[in-house]
């Protein structure tokens, strides 16, 4: 167990480095002047010179990278090229939104996906086919499109939920939840279907094991077999796919947050890309990477708790 966690932490350091190195290297490789790209065609030579100064473009990229990296260790990710604010303070203000969104999505995917998958495996027949069709649609429909349709249906046509905006949890838990319902549905669709697929396969496999047969053969009630023994054993592969799902959710926030005007990291990333605001994008990259690492650690912990063989070793 400890070994597993140590392995995960050891992998996380190259992960942070990889993301940032790639961005810095690309920036130096790109032909032409980055400052001109950022400021556009109508930039004045003075403006470009000032930006050069600000971005440190007169230094070689390795040096600039080193500068950025040493800043990172002091919790300094530079300043936004656009607003001039410190990147960390801008990101910290938005982190809560994205984390709430992703955590809710992971939760929904885990619960709904497992329920659907197990239902499909145990029932079989037409019920299973309905779940299959639902999963295919869930995988095929783009989440931003679903987001718009949800707003159109449940915020505009039937005014069930707010169309846009975010209320922090500390302010009003009820409104916080209401503001998240539609975004979570839109973003979870992929997760639910991916988990359902995994849960179904796992359940089918568990169903055919000796130990389930022995429990049945010795008179244990079907409900106990399904809810305790099948669920517990099918949960192990489900947890591993949850890690992958969580990473994809994080990416998904970029597409969905904008639709619901949620002030999170995803919508900021879109804005920063439009503005060519590299320090902010890099900062978000670091934040996302750290969130991914934490999510993976959580998955490993859950895996270890569910699987006694890992826990014991």
């Amino acid at each position, binding site marked *: 167990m400890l070994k597993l966690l140590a392995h995960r932490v050891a*992998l996380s350091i*190259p*992960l942070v480095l*990889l*993301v940032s190195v*790639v*961005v810095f290297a690309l*920036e130096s490789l*790109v032909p032409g002047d980055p400052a001109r*790209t950022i400021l556009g065609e109508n930039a004045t030579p003075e403006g470009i010179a000032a930006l050069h100064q600000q971005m440190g473009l007169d230094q070689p990229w390795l040096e600039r990278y080193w500068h950025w990296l040493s800043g990172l260790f002091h919790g300094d990710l530079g300043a936004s090229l656009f607003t001039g604010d410190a990147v960390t303070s801008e990101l910290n203000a938005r982190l809560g939104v994205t984390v709430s969104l992703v955590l809710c999505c992971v939760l929904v995917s885990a619960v709904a996906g497992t329920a659907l998958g197990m239902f499909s495996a145990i029932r079989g027949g037409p019920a299973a086919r309905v779940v299959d069709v639902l999963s295919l649609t869930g*995988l*095929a*429909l*783009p*989440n*931003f*499109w679903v987001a*718009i*349709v949800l*707003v*159109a249906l449940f915020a*505009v046509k039937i005014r069930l939920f707010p169309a846009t905006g975010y209320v922090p949890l500390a302010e009003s838990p009820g409104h916080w939840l209401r503001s998240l319902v539609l975004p979570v549905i839109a973003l979870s669709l*992929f997760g639910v279907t991916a988990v359902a697929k995994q849960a179904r396969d796992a359940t089918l496999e568990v169903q055919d094991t*000796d*130990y389930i*047969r*022995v*429990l049945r*053969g*010795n*008179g*244990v009630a079907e409900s*106990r077999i399904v809810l*305790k*023994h099948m669920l*517990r*054993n099918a949960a192990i592969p489900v947890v591993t*796919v949850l890690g*992958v799902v969580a990473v*994809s959710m*994080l*990416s*998904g926030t*970029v597409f969905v947050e904008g*639709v619901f005007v949620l002030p999170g990291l995803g919508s900021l*990333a*879109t804005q*920063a*890309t*439009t503005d060519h*605001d*590299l320090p902010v*994008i*890099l900062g978000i*990259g670091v934040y996302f*990477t750290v969130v991914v690492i934490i999510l993976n650690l959580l998955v490993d912990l859950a895996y270890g708790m569910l*699987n*006694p*063989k890992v826990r*014991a070793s």
Partner: protein
Amino acid sequence: MTTLPEPAPRPAANAANTGLVRSVLRSPRGAIVVAFLVVLILACALAPLIAPYDPLAQHLSAVRSGPSGGYWLGTDSLGRDLLSRLLHGGRSSLLGVLEAVVTLLIVALPTGLLAGYLGGTFDRIAMRVAEVVMSVPVVIILLAVLSIFNHSMTSAMIAFGVLGSSGLMRVIRGAALTAREELYVTAAELMGLSRLQVVVRHVLPRCRGAIIIQASLFAAVTLGVQTGLTFLSLGPPPPAATWGGMVADAASVFNQDAWMLVPPGATIALTVLAFGLLGDVVRDVSAEKYAAAPASRRKRRTGTPETAGRPEPATDMLLSVRDLSVATDGERPLTLLDAVGFDIAAGETVGLVGESGSGKTMTARAVIGLLPGNCQITSGRVVFDGSPVQDLDQRAFRKLRGRRIAMISQEPMAALDPSFRIGSLVAEVVRAVDGIKGKAAHARAIELLRMVEIPDPEAVARRFPHQISGGMAQRVAIAMAIAGRPELLIADEPTTALDVTVQAEILDLLRSLQQQNNMAILLVTHDWGVVADVCTKVVVMYAGQVVETAPAGAVFDRPAHPYTRALLLSSPENTHIGERIQAIPGSVPTPQRWPAGCRFASRCDLAQPGCTEGAIPVKDISEGRLSRCLRVDTLLGGEARR
């Protein structure tokens, strides 16, 4: 979005890969998917020629017109024709997918092949890098690339291909690893082909199915991301037509006109679906081609109802099985058990003996109502304690299980749920059969563990199944089975997986438990030693039929069926040191190949022409002895005894 790690498909054999495309096209799903993709790609490629309007031309007289004769899919809020915009927009989307997939192949193919084929340091580094890349939040890198390269979608798609390649690389590496072990690859190396030649000629073709599957799934994911980026207007700047951009246009006016969401949404969804399904179809086709050609199924032949003179279930028996037939479901049902019959008296131990494939386990599972999902009882009766149980549904059967009929299985380790502690598992059954919970159930569980002679039951109760030995696990399984004080215990090869010394202990335990509780045991085994040790009666099965029934004492001296005799001779106990074990030539015919006459005839040294002519009836030889052999008189006459 990130690609899900797909389970690696089983590598198809080299020859099976030829004609993959043809098989895909021949399956209905494959034909539809490929046709859709071809039409879509052609239509988008030829958009400048076939699109009804210029995608940028504004028809202000027909703003948001909805589908009509002039505008098949309607127009947007500037009066631009949606169909023309879809066709033109598809160009950038499909081109993006192509760029990403080509990049994916360029990166993943060589690294995967080399990692799998060369192994060593290169492999270790490549796998480590792949593991790291798998957890990269891909979208952020794409956004950085778009920002640096001034919204160049091509750069973003190439970056996406590079970042997505770790999944395919792993799959190819796996395939290359297996290919490396194949004889023909070794042979090619010995013939002096260079490594590159071996890889290109022999290893690469093996991976073709896997590559197509992964690439098409990746294409589906890429299209989602590409349209997402254009939706955020991070691709070609407006007013250029893009699929994502059309969704964004529709989003801004959905209050007035919801229709505009439909054409781009449906197009994106259908295209993603087509890519995804293409992967599925290729996977199914490769799996089918890999699986051995199905054995030709002859017409089903069932024997005559057995037990001449005793067609009715015995009423004085604890369990009485008559004419029990089991077949698979489906259009061509396959008979697995053919008119099986036997009796078990209260407190008696009956051995069910035969080679693998004779139907022993299937019989045992039919008795306890736990046939595999695709099998069912087609005829016959199973009478337990005077009442028929063969038609009971699962709910009614559950009332019998545990309390009156219980079971233990062959692999003690596999029989215990690995996720729960021993104590909790036994208590689970206690709860089911005694209706008690919590501390009381736990106390009873400890008592049961003590009854099966487990030393220090409290400590064992706290362990997980993987922390105890096989013999111990079988004791735990027995504890679970006797929790409800059953009258009949079905024991499917309870000692096969155990060491010889442990075997004897488990048999002793079963015997003493049986005497304490007057419990009958149906003991499935292929071990004559076990039969001699504990059984009072023997039922010998062959190819889904009972061929002999006899008291255990009699069968060893005078087997009444050539199969029984052959089984006894092949048993290691009957072989002296230095002698060759007299294995039975041939093997049990599979249900597809059951002959009309005696099913053992082809392996029998007493067979004569009459044996293969028709179904062999069961003969009553003497009190308690039945044989399904025409030549039983010759056999028992001593002439054939060795």
